[in-house]
């Protein structure tokens, strides 16, 4: 497999993952290519656990996980992979006394972006999320939506190969969500962008592929159109994709 130059950037083979005695995944297999991938699923399906595993927060209990060509089951591989991963966690935490520019610069430094090239990527990331005007504001002065955008900026700074965004549109207003979708479509041309979300319209509008997780199992893998096509006639939902989503979850009986 050519991870560096090819489109395959994430490979999961036989992943077992969980917390203490609770197993979230057992024998999960998944590949992710360059482009935008949506992870859909109800609460507790394991979306966040999957992203945390890919972000190297939680090492795999069993199986192999390869990110940008690096096995994250080893210390060396984990460190190398971290340089190529941008991660926006669901509960994004920040340092409120930092300005937007300082925070994004700091995160770029933490990710090992070379110092000489720092101002460029930092400015690009801030501009990409529409925070150029607010770059000098302290994070404590930002609204929830602006904070979320700052979180996205720190995840995409330095053009990582893999961008993991857990509920990235939470807190964004409708116009910002439209802009965000355009942003991740752009990112998807050069990186593997994985979005965990409840919102099927985000997936429909921005994703090249979609995986549906439920109870730690992969229920569906395909394109958004294929998910829409999987809809049962009596499935619940206001759009074809919502009905397809409900169908693969086995909730095909209308309320």
């Amino acid at each position, binding site marked *: 497999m050519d991870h560096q130059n090819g489109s395959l950037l994430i490979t999961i083979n036989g992943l077992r993952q969980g917390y203490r005695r609770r197993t979230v995944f057992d024998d999960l297999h998944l590949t992710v290519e360059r482009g935008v991938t949506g992870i859909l699923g109800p609460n507790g399906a394991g979306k966040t656990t999957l992203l945390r595993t890919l972000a190297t927060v939680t090492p795999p209990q069993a199986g192999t996980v390869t990110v940008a060509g690096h096995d994250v089951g080893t210390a060396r591989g984990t460190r190398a992979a971290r340089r190529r991963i941008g991660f926006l966690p669901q509960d994004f935490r920040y340092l409120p006394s930092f300005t937007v520019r300082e925070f994004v610069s700091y995160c770029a430094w933490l990710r090992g972006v070379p*110092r000489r090239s720092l101002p460029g990527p930092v400015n690009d990331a801030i501009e990409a999320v529409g925070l150029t005007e607010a770059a000098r504001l302290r994070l404590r002065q930002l609204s929830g939506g602006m904070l979320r955008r700052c979180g996205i900026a720190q995840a995409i700074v330095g053009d990582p190969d893999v961008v993991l965004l857990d509920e990235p549109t939470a807190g964004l207003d409708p116009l910002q969500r439209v802009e965000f979708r355009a942003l991740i479509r752009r990112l998807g041309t050069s990186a593997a962008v994985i979005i965990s979300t409840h919102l099927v319209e985000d997936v429909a509008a921005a994703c090249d592929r979609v995986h549906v997780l439920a109870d730690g199992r992969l229920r569906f893998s395909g394109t958004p159109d294929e998910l829409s096509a999987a809809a049962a006639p009596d499935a619940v939902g206001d759009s074809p994709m919502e009905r397809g989503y409900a169908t693969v979850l086995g909730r095909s009986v209308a309320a």
Partner: protein
Amino acid sequence: MTALLIELRRSPLRWWAPGIVALTLLLSFGFEASWQDVWSQASARAQYPVLFVAPVLAAAAAWSASRTRRRGFDAHLHTMYRPRWQAEMAHLCATLIYAAGCYLVGAVTVLVVAASAGPPGLPWPSYLVLGLIATTAVVTVGHLLGLLTPPLISPVLAAVFGYLAIVYTYPYPQWAFWVVSGRPQAEILLPPLAARFVVAVALVLVVLTAAAWSARDLRNRRSRPAALLAVVALVGSLALVDTAGPLRGHREPPTPVCSEGTPRVCVWPDHALRLERLATLAERLPAASLGLLDVPDTFYEEGLRGPAPGITMAAGRPPYELTLQSERSALAMMIHQMIPHSPECPGNPAPDLREVSRARDRLFAWVYSRTVDSTEAFADDQPLQEELDRVLVTPEPEQVAWVESQLAIVDAGGCAA
């Protein structure tokens, strides 16, 4: 450098530094100013505020260090390419730069003020380095407590620890990280100073490994030997301090500076600016004592003819050489050399030596008051001051008779009747 510059801009110490500098200057200049004309004293005074300022800085360091846990940002740090210790090093360096800056502003101000008094010689860098090491060590421990203890109590713990660590090690010359004053008779020795520097470096290592350890990245097995190494370094550095000996030792006495008059007064060259005033006082003593007490040909400052006594040194000899802590103490030491002692009676001691002691006190006070032309120095002892006021206005023959009566008590007082 990127992270350090950001940390410098966002450190809470950036805003607290002016207040801390003000506290430093208050502690340096708010009390007695007898240090200003002697370089060793001025240099020691420059590190004096460390006792109070370093705990404040430690509290600030603890608060700053706890920010990642207060904000839940540590989980984010653990997913980054750079090891946690690198992020912590940038953070700690910024804190130490502010701490050192506050210290140095105070120290330089003290030295500039001292320089304006024109003391002979140069500042003593060893005292300045000692203060810097103590500040670094205490602030680093504060940072460590900020990493390891609950954020809301870590500043208090850091401040209390810093203060107690300085206060409780001070009486033990082997362990002291701070001095009250700097007499020229003593000097800081290089081995114990270097050992204290090693302790500060070891503490920095402990902070960095504690940060790496807090990442709980069990896949990174290198953090375990690093932590072990840091603990060994810290224990080793403390053992080094224990074996390096007392912080200060006796300074080799130089050729003294002596006055021309009679009696002569000889002092350390460091005290040259005080010689003229001391000589003036000494020259008054023969007349002040009406020739009834023996005045030595020369008064020597302590340490010129043998080791000087002191808290951090073995007791020296003789007991009544001049100490130049103040003009009053120097004059007192001169007069004490003039007051005769009672003959010792090992086989037949007097049952009550208090009257002898009082007679010696009266003689001392009489000479002292005549020398400075005032009894104010004895205002705390009302009966003594009243007696002095009565005696000093009597004609000289009556004063001679009074002095001889006191000398008789002293002369006879050591032995039982």
